[in-house]
């Protein structure tokens, strides 16, 4: 009966303890798992474009058969990868610098970062549409002054990358920041007292200890970038489709829900495969 969180050290096998979990589990089973199953079923079903007997993988064969769709898949992965790398390259140093700031300033800076997350990508993308348009307050003055050749950013992959980097950056900074915060200052001071310079401390103490945070951040950034809809839709448009906007197009434009399901399942499988492979690779790398 000392202050603590559990009443017995043994694992409670009593079924009663699982009871409170049932509502949430049931809820997800009915409103997430069943719908996903329905999606799988739909992805295997014949539709207006591709007729076949019974159920099969023809929809997927169709998607893999057309260069257009292959390009979409590759674009999705390419963008996700680039966004992840840039977000990490910018986010890690930013988190590192934030870590050293005083408590109060650091806390305020963190709140400022969470604010774009809460506000939602729709609002933010509108801002990018303004900033990246030719007549907008950013490009227009720069082209007028001759610093920039007139260029079209909206409707390009670059615009999508910029938008997604913007979207994922706060998540990356926050994740890396919280993992950096867990490194006690004494460790850094100990390293300094043993003669390590700032860069060495960073390379030999901070970086290795922050790796779990970096890994989380990588996975988060990649998942967010691959599953984003709003940025690719507005900043890339119908000429620069990724898998999410492809799903959107299948439903809203071509009204082909079976192909939409196939594209969705494809996205899920690809993401799962990459995340799984990456996690496996990394844990093996850490162990070795």
């Amino acid at each position: 009966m000392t202050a603590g969180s559990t009443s017995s050290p043994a694992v409670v096998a009593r079924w009663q303890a699982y009871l409170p979990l049932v509502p949430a589990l049931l809820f997800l089973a009915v409103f997430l798992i069943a719908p996903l199953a329905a999606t799988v079923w739909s992805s295997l079903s014949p539709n207006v474009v591709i007729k076949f007997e019974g159920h099969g993988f023809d929809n997927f064969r169709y998607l893999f058969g057309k260069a257009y769709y292959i390009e979409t898949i590759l674009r999705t992965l390419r963008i996700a990868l680039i966004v992840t790398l840039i977000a990490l390259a910018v986010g890690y140093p930013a988190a590192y610098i934030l870590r050293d700031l005083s408590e109060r300033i650091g806390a305020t800076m963190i709140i400022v970062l969470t604010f774009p997350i809460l506000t939602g990508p729709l609002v933010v993308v509108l801002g990018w549409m303004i900033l990246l348009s030719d007549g907008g307050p950013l490009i227009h003055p720069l082209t007028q002054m001759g610093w920039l050749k007139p260029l079209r950013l909206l409707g390009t992959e670059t615009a999508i990358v910029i938008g997604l980097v913007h979207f994922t950056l706060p998540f990356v900074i926050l994740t890396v920041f919280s993992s950096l915060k867990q490194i006690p200052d004494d460790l850094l001071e100990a390293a300094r007292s043993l003669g390590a310079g700032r860069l060495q401390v960073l390379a030999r103490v901070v970086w290795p200890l922050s790796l779990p945070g970096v890994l989380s951040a990588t996975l988060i950034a990649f998942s967010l970038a691959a599953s984003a809809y709003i940025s690719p839709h507005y900043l890339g448009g119908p000429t620069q489709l990724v898998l999410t906007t492809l799903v959107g197009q299948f439903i809203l434009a071509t009204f082909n829900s079976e192909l939409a399901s196939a594209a969705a399942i494809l996205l899920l499988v690809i993401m799962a495969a990459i995340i799984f492979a990456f996690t496996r690779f990394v844990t093996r790398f850490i162990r070795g």
Partner: protein
Amino acid sequence: MKRLAGSVNSLFLVLVYLFVLGPALVIVADSFNSATSFPSPFESATLKWYRQMLAHDEFLASMQISAIVALLSALIATALAIFAAYALIRHPLRGKNALSTFLMGPLLVPQIVIGLAMLQLIGQLGLRIGLTGLVLVHAVYILPFALRLVMASLARFEFVLEEAAQSLGAGRLRTLWHVTLPMIRPGLASGFIFAFILSFVNLPVSLFLTSPQTATLPIVMFAYMESRIDPLIAAVASAILIATAVASLVLERVFRLRLFG
């Protein structure tokens, strides 16, 4: 040398924050722009777009719907989260990690796929798209966030207080009501508010499930933005920006909400 590094660091941070806040500042600035074509240089400051927004029936109606959907889905998600979090934290359970990963599942599925999946189920069961479906799919999406926040709150709770309540005659439910919940109230409130906001501003989850009667604000904005971008939509976006800015300040200061770590 240290000072140079310090100023380089500061410059870098300033640039990063400019990047992060840039779009938001631009939108707010342009919402006060009296120029009608968009985008165009700043003419003069005006509130006319905000006035127009407040007179715009479609936007107002959709704000109401968004609020209702957000309220209901946040309630559902938070209620489910309280029970699930309690089970996960109170006793060491066999398979706790697997269960908790499963409950965080919606985070791993792209929002648009969550919406699509619900659409498929509704279609295959021959049901109709409506407010219920919308609320439910929102609840699925926000459940992991609510769960994480409630779990963080419960983790700080001293369960010996529950034993004390029991020794004084309170059964399981009464203990929850009189002792546990009051103590985690701040965490619960912040979890609820956070879930509410996430639902309110969300677009992809709702995309395939709206009908004219159940158009949320983001959906209406989406349709609007398909055809044009003008200061009016910038005003709507700014309104959302300011509201969520205030909310995140409240969450941080009053509830000491820490989203990460």
